[in-house]
């Protein structure tokens, strides 16, 4: 019926010969995303972040850990120097170049977010996929475990896990954040696979005589990938926020020389009255990057939704 909405010329062409080339759902979704302003905004933000992270060492005028004596002189007077030649955004409370630190911290953030998402996704998919593929008591046992994890508020869970480690490090943060992501992916994949177990195309595959394992890997998994990918993009955003929050709360690597947005934010807080820019820059960086991933994820969800197909 939607076909009726297309133009006259197009319709007559379609009647004359079959011109369309065979577009998979993926390429259709991609086409829809290219036309969506939200998707483009998200993609631009994410791409800018990735490029900055990749080339940060080349762009940054200084290293993240070098303390500059000329800046430190002012610091003793409890004054944090602002922008000046060679230091575009001025200094931080320890006499580092703020601009360089902001740039280089993007690498840390990217590493933590990607690692946490990948671990969380891998373990979550393993659990959810097994539960969904096998069903029965395996499903019951695994899902009760997941329910337990899900019953904690996510940040609280991350904090408790991070607190288990005596010495905070970035790995503490990664483990904590990925643990929070595990049940989300497990639930998602299991739900999608269970729904498909009762779908007609899986029944059709069984009727054809396709082996059970092949049904899982050829039909059930690929058809769940869309939502998982969307979730992964959103999880990247959440991981960035959570990692920042953990560092902010002092549960990450406490070394004040380390460039990390959450940690920078935490350490800047004492100086908020005199130098709000110290808090302002890392906060903006966190928000913009998280927003980029969220926009990308949401537009992807929109594009993959079969209801929006035209």
């Amino acid at each position, binding site marked *: *019926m939607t076909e*009726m*909405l297309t*133009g*006259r010329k197009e*319709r*007559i062409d379609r*009647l004359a010969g079959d011109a369309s080339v065979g577009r998979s759902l993926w390429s259709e979704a991609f086409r829809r995303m290219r036309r969506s302003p939200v998707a483009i905004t998200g993609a631009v933000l994410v791409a800018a972040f990735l490029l900055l992270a990749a080339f940060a060492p080349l762009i940054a005028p200084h290293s993240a850990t070098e303390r500059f004596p000329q800046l430190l002189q002012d610091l003793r007077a409890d004054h944090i120097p602002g922008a000046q030649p060679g230091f575009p955004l001025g200094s931080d409370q320890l006499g580092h170049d703020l601009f360089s630190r902001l740039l280089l911290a993007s690498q840390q953030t990217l590493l933590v977010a990607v690692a946490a998402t990948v671990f969380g996704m891998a373990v979550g998919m393993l659990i959810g996929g097994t539960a969904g593929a096998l069903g029965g008591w395996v499903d019951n046992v695994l899902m009760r475990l997941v329910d337990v994890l899900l019953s904690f508020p996510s940040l609280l869970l991350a904090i408790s896990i991070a607190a288990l480690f005596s010495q905070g490090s970035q790995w503490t943060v990664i483990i904590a954040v990925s643990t929070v992501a595990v049940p989300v992916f497990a639930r998602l994949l299991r739900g999608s696979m269970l729904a498909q177990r009762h779908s007609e195309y899986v029944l059709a595959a069984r009727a054809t005589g396709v082996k059970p394992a092949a049904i899982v890997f050829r039909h059930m998994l690929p058809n769940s990938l869309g939502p998982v990918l969307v979730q992964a993009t959103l999880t990247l955003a959440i991981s960035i926020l959570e990692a920042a929050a953990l560092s902010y709360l002092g549960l990450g690597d406490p070394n004040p020389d380390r460039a990390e947005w959450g940690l920078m934010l935490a350490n800047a807080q004492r100086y908020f009255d005199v130098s709000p820019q110290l808090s302002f820059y890392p906060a903006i960086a966190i928000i913009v990057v998280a927003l980029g991933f969220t926009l990308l994820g949401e537009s992807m969800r929109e594009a993959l939704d079969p209801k929006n197909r035209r």
Partner: protein
Amino acid sequence: MALLDVTDLSVVFRRRGEEPFTAVDKVSFSVEPGQTVGLVGESGCGKSVTSLAIMGLLPKRGNQVTGSVRYEGTELLSLSPDQMRARRGKDLGMVFQDPLSSLNPVIPIGIQVTEVLEKHRGMPRRKAMIEAEDLLNRVGIPDPRRRLTEYPHQLSGGMRQRALIAIALACRPRVLIADEPTTALDVTIQAQILALLKELVTDTGTALIMITHDLGVVAGLCDQVNVLYGGRVVERAGRHELFELPRHPYTHGLLASIPRLDLEGDRLVPIPGSVADNIPWDGGCAFAPRCANQIADCTARTPELTGDQQRLLLCHNPMEVAVR
């Protein structure tokens, strides 16, 4: 003057970033009291949109309704929403295809019926209850008193459709529009509902507009039949004339393509292509790409509606032979 007179009714949907789409295109027909008029056609030909436009139920935004719908001489399309709301139910009733989604799931059937009676006919509660029971009884719901206290999900599909008809009848509308009222039901239940509608028309003189894609239903029920294709009426005739000699190639093709219960089967003659294979009416005949009788004119000129009281046709080259 007919009871309900629909003239040149058109509905154009306009969505941002899309070409306007004409779902209903200059449709005209009229109904008299005690008469049943059928609108038949395949999915997407504009049957439901036509009925919604008559009832004033299309959303205000994103579409444009033109033409005229006159009820006893009053132009309905120019009424305010409030005036139209007062007419719905009272003058014009409607029964939808899916009874479950048109009943309120959290309110007992009884309240849904009495509400209408109280609102439109100003009955006091107690009297409305008695009347409601009587209504359910009339549409053939067994043990109506108990049913009144039940919720829609506790009724079977056929009973729900009856309840919906009871609600539509509560205000004694003089025109009843039934949009595929039996499509979701089994044939034995369909037969019950159709018998009920037939009885209603003969007993109370209600005018019935029957929307369906089932030519069998039309053959048994409708005095006059309008065949729709691509939003336009392509053929209209009395049911005997229409089925005896369908003149429009589409009507003809439909009848040739459906197997008959009462006849030994010859090979079916399908209509090629699908409803999506049409060209817009403004440059020829929308049915031309699928038409067995196509001539050069069909893709060059828009056909005009021609004919008389007996039969109207929208075709450059109508059929001359019977189906079987």
